[in-house]
């Protein structure tokens, strides 16, 4: 009876939507730039999950290829973002998201 119910791609899409929402709220309410970056990673993972679910549903491997590129871009983004955060926090220890306004040119 329990084993008869199998998860459909819709379940995965709903889960991805929930995780994306949690990540978006985290970006809005947290003030530590490192935690904001972690919440962005959460949102990227939610999108990856929906890519794989739709790849499964449509029978197309292109969704999984897109996840591969998202992984690469996420790695590059984290490297550059953490470099910027290191530079700022060296000058202002304990800076929060408001202090990042000095990035404005």
């Amino acid at each position, binding site marked *: 009876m329990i084993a008869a119910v199998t998860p459909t791609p819709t379940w995965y899409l709903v889960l991805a939507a929930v995780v994306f*929402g949690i990540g978006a*709220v985290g970006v809005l309410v947290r003030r530590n730039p490192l935690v904001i970056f972690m919440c962005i990673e959460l949102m990227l993972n939610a999108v*990856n999950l929906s890519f794989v679910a739709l790849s499964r549903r*449509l029978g197309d491997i292109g969704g*999984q290829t897109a996840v591969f590129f998202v992984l690469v871009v996420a790695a*590059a983004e984290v490297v550059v973002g953490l470099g910027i955060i290191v530079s700022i926090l060296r000058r202002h220890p304990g800076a929060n998201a408001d202090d990042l306004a000095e990035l404005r040119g």
Partner: protein
Amino acid sequence: MQLVVFVVATLMVVGGAVGVVVNRHPVHAALSLVLTLFGVAVHFVAQEAHFLAAVQVIVYAGAIVVLFLFVIMLLGVDRSEDLRIDPLPVQRPLAAVMGVGLVGLLIAAIVSTRDIPARALGGGLDVAGVPSVDAPPEVFRPIDVVVDHDANIRQLGVDLFGNQVFAFELTSVLLIVAVAGTVILTRKDRRGSPLSTDGDEP
């Protein structure tokens, strides 16, 4: 069995995601992120994306979170943030309203398009080593019929180095730019560039 896997992995993902947002300590938030990433990897395995599950664990949990922890320790910012201080009075209610509205809209869109029949765009996911074009997309094959364990990787590789080879080459450029940019951003310049510390660093 698949339902049990789905429920357990979903609890991991959602629990870790909530933990990232509500943990006061950045190190605890990073460890909650690891829990979420492992849960997503379990979901990938359940959907027979085996290569992506391995890459998820290696790149995300193995490299990106370690990078986060390394920066936390390097900067010495491993202290708690008092979440009870609300700098902008309306920020949290607005964020909650926005989050609930976003999730509601997404779920409404997902549910409303649920019954649209899926077109078979590609040649079918060749997970079992046999073409699966004729199989209805909603049917999840049991795990134990997998006869060729390399089929997912082979199909992904053919698509990556065949259809998407130009994008693949561009990612190499992106990685080089990212590495060079990070080196320039974080070095200590004696001549005093705006991003350096101008000698007030020991």
